């Protein structure tokens, strides 16, 4: 009497998962190798995006704090033609700004062209008249006065480091600022109170900062050309939109992203390029993971043949291989997340990238690049890196997994 041989029922999924998990630690070296590869890819992805996003934010932040402002309010005519003649008609709205949500400080400024003269040199400059107290909250320049001190009152001037060097002016010496605007030709002798060294070429090479009252005398502007607002980083556009309702006709508020001009195009182009580059890197990373899994399957042909002979269906072998890859990738991904976010936090907290861009800043003075470049930290980076790993796991299922699924147990057990 013969019994019909019936194939064994496939083992349930849970035992397959346990088998896959145990297989990982049976081949510790191989597993660790794949773990390291996956963790490295994850780490690299996070650091890469931390740098890309952080660089763009640093440029814009630097522009906002050194050259323009986070939010600027000016007459529409002034945006078209930044001449003192296009100054703000009245400043009644400024009081209302103080109560506007998101506005931490409002500072009046007068921008005007002038001649700067020392006993040796005369040169054309762009002068900014400011409220010294309000400017401390709005701009980083007051904290970057390397010699002397920040403005204390009228009769003083702050010069950029390169400006002072070019006209050979020293702390305590008098220079002459001349302008011709609404008040007709005017000239004043101002004492050099401080010399700023910011690391931002656009500031160090051009900054001439005077007291708002001196600027009013020189230009005849009774109010200001701009009102600049200090807001939390990242809220510039929202605050600009919010305060617009408080402004009279013909006056507009613009966030720094609207003020950066050509730099915006550069930053956006860099970001597009970063995505393209990232896709290429992701593809290679996924291939690296999949190829590691593939080699692993190749080396375990006999072992897989034994497993198949013990009753695991070939199709289930494919699932087993894919599960092994999945577990390893997840472990590596988690480890990479930890390392990557730690590195991103470090880059976001400490100015590691800044000195690297010091030379670039000097070559592109209008870019607003400073010596302070920080990384960014965003939750989305986990998704970016997870996507890479997911693609890698899919590759693993497609190639090594299918190979395992097509194994012939007898043939496999005879393999070397």
């Amino acid at each position, binding site marked *: 009497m013969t019994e019909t041989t019936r194939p064994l029922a496939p083992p349930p999924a849970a035992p397959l998962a346990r088998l896959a998990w145990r297989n990982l630690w049976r081949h510790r070296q191989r597993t660790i190798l794949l773990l390291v590869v996956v963790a490295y890819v994850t780490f690299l992805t996070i650091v890469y995006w931390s740098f890309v996003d952080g660089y763009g934010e640093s440029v814009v932040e630097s522009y906002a704090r050194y050259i323009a402002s986070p939010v600027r309010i000016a007459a529409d005519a002034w945006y078209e033609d930044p001449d003192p003649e296009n100054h703000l008609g009245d400043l009644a709205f400024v009081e209302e700004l103080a109560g506007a949500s998101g506005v931490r400080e409002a500072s009046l400024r007068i921008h005007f062209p002038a001649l700067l*003269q020392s006993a040796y040199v005369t040169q*054309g400059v762009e002068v900014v008249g400011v409220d010294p107290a309000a400017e401390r909250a709005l701009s980083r320049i007051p904290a970057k006065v390397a010699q002397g001190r920040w403005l204390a009152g009228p009769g003083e001037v702050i010069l950029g480091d390169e400006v002072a060097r070019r006209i050979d002016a020293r702390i305590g010496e008098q220079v002459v600022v001349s302008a011709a605007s609404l008040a007709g030709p005017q000239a004043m*002798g101002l004492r050099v109170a401080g010399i700023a060294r910011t690391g931002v070429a656009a500031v160090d090479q051009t900054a001439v900062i005077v007291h708002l009252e001196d600027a009013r005398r020189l230009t005849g502007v009774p109010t200001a050309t701009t009102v600049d607002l200090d807001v939390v980083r990242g809220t510039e556009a929202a605050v600009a939109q919010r305060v617009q309702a408080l402004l009279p006709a013909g006056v507009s508020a613009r966030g720094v992203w609207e003020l950066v001009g050509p730099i915006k195009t550069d930053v956006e182009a860099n970001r597009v390029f970063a995505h393209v580059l990232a896709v290429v890197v992701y593809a290679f990373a996924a291939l690296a993971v999949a190829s590691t899994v593939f080699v692993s399957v190749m080396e375990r042909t006999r072992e897989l043949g034994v497993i198949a002979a013990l009753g695991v269906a070939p199709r289930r072998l494919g699932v087993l291989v894919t599960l092994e890859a999945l577990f390893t990738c997840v472990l590596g991904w988690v480890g990479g997340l930890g390392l990557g976010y730690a590195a991103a936090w470090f880059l976001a907290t400490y100015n590691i990238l800044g000195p690297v861009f010091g030379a670039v800043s000097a070559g592109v003075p209008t870019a607003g690049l400073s010596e302070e470049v920080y990384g960014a930290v965003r939750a989305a980076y986990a998704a970016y890196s997870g996507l890479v790993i997911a693609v890698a796991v899919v590759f693993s299922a497609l190639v090594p997994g299918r190979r395992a699924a097509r194994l012939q147990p007898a043939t496999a057990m005879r393999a070397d």
Partner: protein
Amino acid sequence: MKATRSRVVVTVLGSLLVLASVLAPAAGGLSAAAQGEAQPGPYEDPAAVLEAVLDNLRGGPLRGTYTFLVERPGRATEYVMEFVTDGEERGLIRIIAPPREAGQAFLMDGDDLWLYNARLGRSLRLPPSGRSSAFLGSDVSYNDIVGRDMEKDYTVAFAVPGATQTAGAAGDTIDTIVLELTPRQGAPTPYGRVIISIEAATLTPQWLDYYDQRGRVVKRLVLSEYLESAGRRVPQLMVVEDRTREGYRTVVRLADVQMGAAVPGSCFTLQALERGCP
């Protein structure tokens, strides 16, 4: 754009400008102090001495021709210009040589300075810094001697009390007064001080030294070859030396002087700037 025009004005100002020497000799002669003999010392009020010197420098109405020889290391450039002044705060200069600059004109009316560019056919108003900027790239500026800016911008004192005796150009001994001018607070001048040597008998300046704020002479003006007529004294030669740069010097000569010439007010208008003085 207006801002662009302002910047052009500023830029042009930085490289051109000012008349000073034109009015300086134009000033030669004039006012009460110049009527007859200058009062000899001793002078007790340095401000009065300075006022008298400036009065003596500002002449009555005057026409003439200036020649600027701008010397630089390895090269020299000569400018010839016609000028007319009312002896006070107004003057008109028109460049007649070299050809590339010919036709340019400058109008000064108090604090207002105007430049006419013949090629562009446009007149530009220049800021007051032109008064202390280089004229035609030379070492001469309006504020070197001319106008009353010295009285406005500086406090004056005797560098040496009373008059001292110094060697004259003719080998004789002359009485000399030395004034020291110190900038007033906030005055639009970059200098630390100015020293003026004055011939006591005639109250005409012999030389001026401009100091920076570190005690170094950065510019020297030497006036000589005074032309005297009807109680007025006009320096026919002025040498301006840039003491910060080797070989930088400007020699200004005055010729064809017409003292007391008829100078109508219409000579100092924008129309005259563009078309010439009648």
